[in-house]
């Protein structure tokens, strides 16, 4: 490794960080516009053309706002909780391959901050650290709504992390590697979505839940908990939580593209090849981010027991059942068709189980007696 390599890595880190921040501003603006449109409103339209500068205006406002430190808050943990929340959210993006190779002279630069051989595991690990930000923020605020929000959200994130971990295993099995770049390269002939519909659905549902987004936004259910775990936060600390949430959306979408939709791959003309890859990647990711908005606008919030039921009683068992099915097909080399067929069937089952909100469970007579 010579000094040029170090410089390249630094440049990649700095450029990505700045671009991501810019991207976040766009994502936030786009959400407000899209949701507004779906609800027949106009949305932000004052700052700049089409309200494009709204996010920047909000950012400036939050920067200059008074930073409130509640009397009963924990001296050490309260200030660092937002940082713990934001750092892993950004770190997780380091393993996302947003393009193939950039060749300048004899030097090949992978369009990815770090191609480590256990990239996918890194992504999952960062997701699991993100729980700390929420849990610690809720606890350290020293008041009850944030605490309840934190308890809810840590339970939720742990539960859905398991489902998410299970959903990526078949993909790893097919790609034969945990490297995100390797997984994209393994999809040259066929995107994994073709054979892995159940995995994809589980990943998507778990991903929405991991971001604490509607319909899984119980940790910050306004009607019940004011603003959940970040009720007491204001100013720049609040902004960090805000950025972390949107960063999660971007990363989850980007990983979904990487795992199931061929990453940067797509048909392209034969010039400026790396650029087309990045564009394809951005386009696919944008589609997923849009899906996040759409889901938020469409589904009502789940009740807490329903949330746990969906996670533990549907996603995890189905994820577990799907792993041996995928493995068996992979080993015994049955025609892909069988797998796709089975995938579609299981996918339909997943959807039919998850989508309709479950009726509240009616206690049987016996159970009612014991409860009484």
């Amino acid at each position, binding site marked *: 490794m010579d000094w040029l390599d170090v410089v390249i890595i630094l440049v990649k880190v700095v450029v990505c960080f700045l671009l991501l921040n810019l991207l976040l501003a766009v994502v936030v603006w786009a959400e407000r516009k899209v949701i507004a449109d779906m609800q027949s409103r106009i949305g932000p339209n004052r700052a700049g053309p089409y309200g494009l500068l709204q996010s920047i205006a909000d950012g400036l406002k939050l920067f200059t706002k008074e930073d409130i430190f509640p009397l009963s808050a924990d001296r050490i*943990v309260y200030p660092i909780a937002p940082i713990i929340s934001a750092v892993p959210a950004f770190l997780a993006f380091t393993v996302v391959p947003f393009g193939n190779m950039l060749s300048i002279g004899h030097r090949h630069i992978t369009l990815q901050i770090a191609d480590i051989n*256990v990239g996918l*595991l890194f992504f999952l*690990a960062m997701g*699991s650290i993100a729980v*700390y930000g929420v849990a610690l923020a809720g606890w350290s605020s020293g008041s009850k709504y944030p605490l309840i929000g934190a*308890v809810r959200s840590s339970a939720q994130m742990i539960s859905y992390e398991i489902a998410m971990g299970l959903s990526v295993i078949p993909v790893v099995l097919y790609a034969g590697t945990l490297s995100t770049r390797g997984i994209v390269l393994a999809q040259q002939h066929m995107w994994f979505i073709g054979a892995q519909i159940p995995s994809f659905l589980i990943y998507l549902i778990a991903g929405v839940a991991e971001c604490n987004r509607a319909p899984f936004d119980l940790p910050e259910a306004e009607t019940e908990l004011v603003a959940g775990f970040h009720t007491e936060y204001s100013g720049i600390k609040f902004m960090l939580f805000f950025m972390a949430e949107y960063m999660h959306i971007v990363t989850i979408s980007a990983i979904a593209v990487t795992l199931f939709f061929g990453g940067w791959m797509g048909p392209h003309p034969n010039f400026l090849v790396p650029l087309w890859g990045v564009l394809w990647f951005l386009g696919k990711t944008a589609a997923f981010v849009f899906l996040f908005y759409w889901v938020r606008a469409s589904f009502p919030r789940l009740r807490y027991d329903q949330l746990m039921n969906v996670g533990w009683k549907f996603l995890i068992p189905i994820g577990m059942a799907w792993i041996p099915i995928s493995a068996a097909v992979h080993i015994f080399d049955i025609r892909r068709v069988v797998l796709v067929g089975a995938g579609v069937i299981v996918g339909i089952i997943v959807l039919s189980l998850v989508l309709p909100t479950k009726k509240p469970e009616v206690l049987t007579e016996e159970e009612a007696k014991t409860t009484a």
Partner: protein
Amino acid sequence: MALPTIAFWILAAFTAVSTLFTVLTRNVVHSALGLAASLIGAAALFILFGAQFVGLAQILIYVGAVVILFMFGIMLTGTAVRPVVDNDQRPAAALVALAVFLVLAAGIVSSFGTKKVRFQVAFPTVQLGHQLFTTWVLPFEAVSILLLAALVGAIVLARRD
């Protein structure tokens, strides 16, 4: 000093300090947080020595699940409201800890004091998987039975009769 050596000292100091913080603080939540930090430090050391899979699995399981469950327990049991705990055995515990430390440190220094440790590139995860499911399949399966028993046991103990 080479880059990895510098990284090693920073990580080692970080791990040691956070572990000390874990045992010295009287606040349960701070203690759990310190434990998480020390586990992250240990995971980083694993990664530094080429065991990337082990390091990240450690973060995923210990930091992401086990310590979070501690936090969960703290929050649910009301310790969160009054998190400061202490007992009167601190001096005795410090003495024992110091003795154990001295014995281990002396042993390790005298056994490895002059040896050089090589920093390795990442160990291929594929090989790890192959090993786990061939030679080590029996302990692997035994552990799965153990986890099943733990699962059943946890439900049995946690259930309200």
